[in-house]
C-alpha cells in the first residue's frame, strides 16, 4: 500500500442545489481534479431538501470513491431540510434505471430518507476540522443558502479562516438573495465570483457525452443523466464547472481575475462590483484566448474514469505530535 508524504492536496467543499446539469457535471469535474491530485473532495452538500437529488449526488460520490473500505469511508451527503424541494429532473432518476445482465441495478440509491443524509453545518464543521490549516476551499454552485446558514454556526467563521483560503462562487443570487447578501458581506476569506460574462462564455459541449464519456465508461451515470436532463443534442453553459476548475487550479490562468473589490447585492438581486484595494472579492472573467482550452479541460476532467483514492495517512502535525520519548539517563 502506498502512503503519501507531506500535506495532502487541498480539501474541496462543494455546495450546490444541483438545479442545473452544469452543477451536476461540476461534481464530475471535481472528481476529475481529484484523480489528478489537484484537490481532494472533502464533502458534497446540497442546499434544498430533495432526497432524489441527494441520492443522485450520493451515488456519484460512491461511483468515484469506490466501495467503502477500511480507512476509505464515503462521507454522507449534507442536505438542508428546510425550504422547497424544487424540481426533480429526470436526470437524477435515469441512472438508477440501468440494470446489469443479471437484473441487478448498476447504481443503487442509498438515500431513502432524511436520516440517510447529514446536517450541512455539522458536515462543514466536522470535515473542516479534519483539514490542515489553509488547506481547503469552498465551491458554491447555486444559491448561497447553506453557506449563509453556516456563518451563524458556532465557531464556523473561525474554522473557515483557519482551514480554507477562498470561496469560488457560481452563485445563483436570485434564488436566495438574503443568503447571497450575507455571504458576500460576511464570508471571512476571499471570494471569487464567476461573472455573468464568464458564465455565458464557457459552454460545455453535449457531443462529448457520446464521445469522451462513453469511451471512458459506457455505464457512466452522467451519460444517462445528461441525456435525460433535456432533449439531445444540447450544449450547456458551465459556470459551476468553471468555478470548480478555478478553485482547484487557480494558478493555471484559465480565466482573467479582476482587481480586488466589493460585491454588493441589492434586495432585488441585482449585483454590482466596485473596485477597492481593501475589498475581498474578485470577479472571474473569460479569457478569449483560453476558451477552447478551458472547454477541452473540462471535458477531459468530467469524463475521466474514477481513480480510487489511495489510503493517505498524513504525518502528524508538529504541534500535535505525541511527546517524544524521554531519554533515559544513565
Amino acid at each position: 500500500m502506498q502512503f503519501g508524504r507531506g500535506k495532502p492536496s487541498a480539501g474541496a467543499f462543494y455546495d450546490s442545489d444541483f438545479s442545473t446539469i452544469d452543477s451536476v457535471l461540476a461534481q464530475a469535474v471535481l472528481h476529475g481534479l481529484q484523480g489528478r491530485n489537484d484537490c481532494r473532495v472533502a464533502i458534497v452538500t446540497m442546499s434544498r431538501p430533495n432526497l432524489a437529488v441527494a441520492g443522485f449526488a450520493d451515488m456519484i460520490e460512491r461511483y468515484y470513491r469506490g466501495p467503502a473500505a477500511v480507512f476509505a469511508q464515503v462521507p454522507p451527503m449534507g442536505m438542508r431540510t428546510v425550504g422547497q424541494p424544487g424540481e426533480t429532473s429526470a436526470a437524477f432518476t435515469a441512472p438508477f434505471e440501468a440494470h446489469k445482465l443479471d437484473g441487478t441495478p448498476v447504481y443503487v440509491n442509498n438515500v431513502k430518507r432524511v436520516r440517510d443524509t447529514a446536517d450541512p453545518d455539522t458536515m462543514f464543521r466536522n470535515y473542516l476540522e479534519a483539514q490542515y490549516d489553509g488547506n481547503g476551499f469552498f465551491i458554491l454552485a447555486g444559491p448561497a443558502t447553506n453557506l449563509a446558514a453556516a456563518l451563524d454556526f458556532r465557531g464556523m467563521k473561525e474554522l473557515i479562516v483557519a482551514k480554507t483560503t477562498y470561496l469560488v462562487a457560481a452563485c445563483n443570487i436570485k434564488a436566495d438573495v438574503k443568503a447571497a447578501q450575507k455571504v458576500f458581506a460576511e464570508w471571512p476569506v476571499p471570494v471569487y465570483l464567476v461573472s455573468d460574462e464568464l458564465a455565458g462564455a464557457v459552454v460545455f459541449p453535449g457531443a462529448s457525452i457520446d464521445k469522451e464519456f462513453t469511451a471512458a465508461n459506457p455505464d457512466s451515470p452522467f451519460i444517462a443523466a445528461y441525456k435525460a436532463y433535456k432533449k439531445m443534442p444540447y450544449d450547456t453553459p458551465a459556470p459551476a464547472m468553471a468555478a470548480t476548475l478555478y478553485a482547484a487550479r487557480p494558478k493555471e490562468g484559465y480565466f482573467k481575475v479582476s482587481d480586488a473589490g466589493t460585491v454588493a447585492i441589492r434586495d432585488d438581486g441585482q449585483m454590482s462590483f466596485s473596485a477597492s484595494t481593501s475589498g475581498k472579492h474578485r470577479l472571474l472573467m473569460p479569457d478569449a484566448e483560453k476558451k477552447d482550452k478551458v472547454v477541452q479541460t473540462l471535458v477531459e476532467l468530467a469524463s475521466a474514469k474514477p481513480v480510487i483514492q489511495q489510503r493517505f495517512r498524513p504525518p502528524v502535525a508538529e504541534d500535535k505530535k505525541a511527546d517524544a520519548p524521554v531519554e533515559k539517563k544513565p
Partner: protein
Amino acid sequence: MITGKTLPRRTFLRGVGTAAIGLPFLDAMAPALRASTAPGKPPIRMAFFYVPNGEIMDAWNPSYEGKFQELPRTLKALEPYKDDMIQISNLTHNTGRALLDGAGDHGRCSGSYLTGIQVKKSLVEIKNGISFDQIVANRIGKETRFPSIELGMDDARQAGDCDSGYSCAYTNNLAWRGETQPLPPILDPRALFERLFGNGQPMTPEERARQSKYRRSILDFVTDDTHKLESNLGPTDRRKLDEYLSSIREVERQIERAEKDNKQIDPHMDKPYGVPSDFAEHFRMMSNMIAIAFQADQTRIVTFLVTHEGTSRAYREIGIPDGHHPLTHHRNQPDLMEKTRKINEYHVQQFAGFIEKMKTTKEGDRSLLDNSMIVYGAGLSDPNAHLHEDLPTIIVGKGGNYFKTGRRVLARRETPMCNLFLTMMDRMGCPVEHFGDSTGRLNGLDADSLDLA
C-alpha cells in the same frame, strides 16, 4: 403505607465507627420527598456502561427501525426488557476521529466519550475537558451522599502509553472533573462496598481484620438503628427494608466468597483480594452495588468502564482464549468476527442481569429502572475500521416516564453524541445550551419520531 411520622429521604442506618447505610425509597418518605423535590417525582438516575473495542454491527443493529420486533443477536439477552429500552443509531463522536492526530482511535474514543473534546495526544501532558456527568454531578451532587461514582473492572493505570502516544489516562477513565483531572474508577468490589456502606473512608487493615475475625456483616453494626427504624415502619416498608438489607448482605457474601477464592487461587496475586477472577462475577458484584446505590439514592450518577479500550482480555469462560482487541481487527475473517460477536453478546448478557435487578426493584409505584437512564454503549462502531459514527448506543429505562421506549430510532448521520448528552442533562435537571461538539438537543426521544431538522 405512611405511619404518621415522615422519614427524611437521607436517613442512614449508622453503626459504631464504620457503617452508614443509606435507605431505599420507603412509603414513609413520600411526604418528605414531595417536599424536597418536584411534586411526586422521584429522582432520575443516570449511568453509563462503556464497553470497549466497538461492536460487530451486523449483530448490533436490527434490520428495521421503529417498534422492536426480534432483537438482533448481540442484544438478545435484553429481549425481556425491550419495552424498556430505546436504541439510537447514527450518533457520532467527531472528536474521536483522527482530525490530523494520526493513529490512536482507541485512546481518543474513550477519552472523548463523555467529554466531546478532542483529547491532546500526549503521554505526560494530558488534556481533556470536563465530562458531562461531572457537570451534572456539580449541579445536583450535593443532594446525594456521593455526587457520582466511577467504576471499572480491569485497569486503572493513569500513566504510560495505552494507544499510539495516548496516555492511559484517556483509556482508563470515563469521567473527568476538569481538563487534567480524570476520576479513576474503583475496580475492587470491597473498596466499593466500603465506600457505599462504610463511613466514607476505606477501612483500615486493622478494622477489616477485626471485622473478618468475628465474621461480622456490616449489617451487624447497624442492628440497633435497624430495629429502631423498623418499629416505626408499616408492614410494606418493613418488607422493603428487609429485601434491601438482604441484597446488601448478598453482595457482602459475594465479596467474601471472592476474597476467599482468590486467597486459595494465589495468595500472592497482586490485585486486591476482593476482585474476582471471573468476569461475570465481578460484573455482577459491581452492578448489584450500582443498583443498591441508586435504590438508596446514594448517588444519581454512575460511570462504569466495563473494560478499557484496547484491552486484550481473553474470555476463556465462553471458549475464547484470544485477546479481545486483536480479535476486533478481524479483517472480515468470519471466524474472528464470530468470536468478537460472542464477546459482544457476553457483555450484554451481564448487563441484562443488572437491568433485571433495576426493573424488579420497586420505587413508589414504578420500578427503579423507570426512573433511570442507563446507557450502554461504545466509543467505536466497526472496530476493524475504527469508525466513530453510528456508535452503538442503547438507553434502558424511561428516564422518569420520558423516553418513548420499545423501539429503534435513527438520527441523521453525523448527529453528535453530545446532542444526546444535552437531552440527558435536561432530564437530570441541569440544562445547558452547549456541550462538547453538540449542535442542539436530540429531540423526539419522547415522541413518535426524532426531530431530524
